[in-house]
């Protein structure tokens, strides 16, 4: 039900707020994948499992994700947004 109602009023493209250029249409951007956690400190002893998880696993929630975008057909800058994977709503913040 939630989804159906949401779908009816959602715009078809994202309006992304580039920190330098302001709100611009999604077609100017390239998607840069989910925001990564901090790279584990490889000078100290880290468990293999931590490494593998850092390299291969991202959160995949039915809900908010933090992701990188590249304003490739604009200023060339990178930035992070929070987006709801159910609706494509851009939201203020979410878990990383």
């Amino acid at each position, binding site marked *: 039900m939630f989804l159906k109602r949401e*779908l009816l009023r959602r715009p078809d*493209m994202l309006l992304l707020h580039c920190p330098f250029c302001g709100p611009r249409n*999604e077609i100017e951007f390239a998607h840069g994948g*989910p925001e990564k956690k901090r790279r584990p400190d490889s000078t100290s002893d880290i468990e293999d499992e931590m490494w593998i998880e850092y*390299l*291969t*696993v991202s959160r*995949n929630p039915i809900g908010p994700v933090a992701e990188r975008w590249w304003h490739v057909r604009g200023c060339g800058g990178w930035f992070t947004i929070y987006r709801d*994977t159910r609706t*494509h709503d851009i939201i203020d913040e979410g878990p990383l």
Partner: protein
Amino acid sequence: MQRYSIFSLARNAFSNHQSWSKAWRSPPLKNHYDVLIIGAGGHGLSTAYYLAKNHGITNVAVLERGWLGGGNIARNTVTIRSNYMRDESIPFYVKSVELYEGLTKELNYNLMYSNRSMIDIVQTYPKLREIKRRMYHMDLYDSTYERIETDEVRRRIPPLTGGGPDSRFPIICGMVHPQAAVCRHDAVAWSFARAADNLGVEIHQNTEVIKLIREDHNGRICGVETNRGIIRANKVAVVVSGHTTSITDTIGLRLPIKSFNLTAFVSEPVKPIIDVVVNCPDIGVYLSQSDKGELVIGGAPDPGQSFRRDIKQHVFENAVCSMLELFPAFKRLKLMRQWGGTLDIAHDATPIVSKTDIPGLFVSAGWWGGFKAVPAGGFTLAHLIANNEPHPLIEPFSLGRFRGLDFVLEAGTTTAT
């Protein structure tokens, strides 16, 4: 099982087709089974069938939150092919195509399987090199590619009038993959459901798994919680395509999988004009013509994670504009329907068919081009569930590969990355 044939068709015509027996039962839900399969899509149903047929395991329930065959199996563009890149992948898909060819007979269900070649329209040299590389690998496993020159491409695909010398990407040549085929997607789900049911498997629709349950003392899987109560089993297989992580997250199992939206659309039906699957990997669109005459068209997935099932306007426009560069006459076609599905893609883009760290829990996931893989996916997952050891064809698809960082990098053959 009531057999389908020309005679049963004629016989049932006398009763106005009112007395056909049901294709599968709707039995009462028990609270214990030997094996639970979550998800009645292509893979879940074929797994159930092969469990019963090849391994004699019939105390099996397939749990489906919606209706049987209503997920991606109902949403895909039905291309079956084995033109993959890696030594680890090609034999698996060759086996799947081989199983498909015999299914209509084996399951006594007309899948409308139609072998019709896929022609890749090559428009850049990097793509040509990539396909040639695949060709040399495929040659080792009885899957083939053959180069044809542009004139021949145009002869085999009459409406292909774009891509001339003055265009943005002139056509360099075509690469033909003769093993490619299409077949009726719903029939795949229905035929496996009917055959599995006939062997004693229960299919429970409107039964949503909410979470997985583990034994307190040893951590083994012991069942699932559903909207219809708790159901117990010592073996549980998660076969839910795009929703894999939402189930494995419930017991803290973290998988290297992300979900994306992939879309397709169809035109109004027209007279037969294309009898092959046309794939245009350089501009990101592919199409074939259905038996009804509609052009079935697909593009690239939306790059961000998504659980939506509609289509983004610009993803749709990109695919249409690309198609019109090569097929300008299609400008006059009306597009009738568009839809999407939620696909899961693993970190290295190769599927995962594997045991997990939780004893008794199996996953079959990462099937973002997994319609072609339905028979072999079920065949090998059933083997894994029954023997607790992987079938040789899926040894490379285990979760263990990530532990050793032994990725099986399988870039998109068509459009996905």
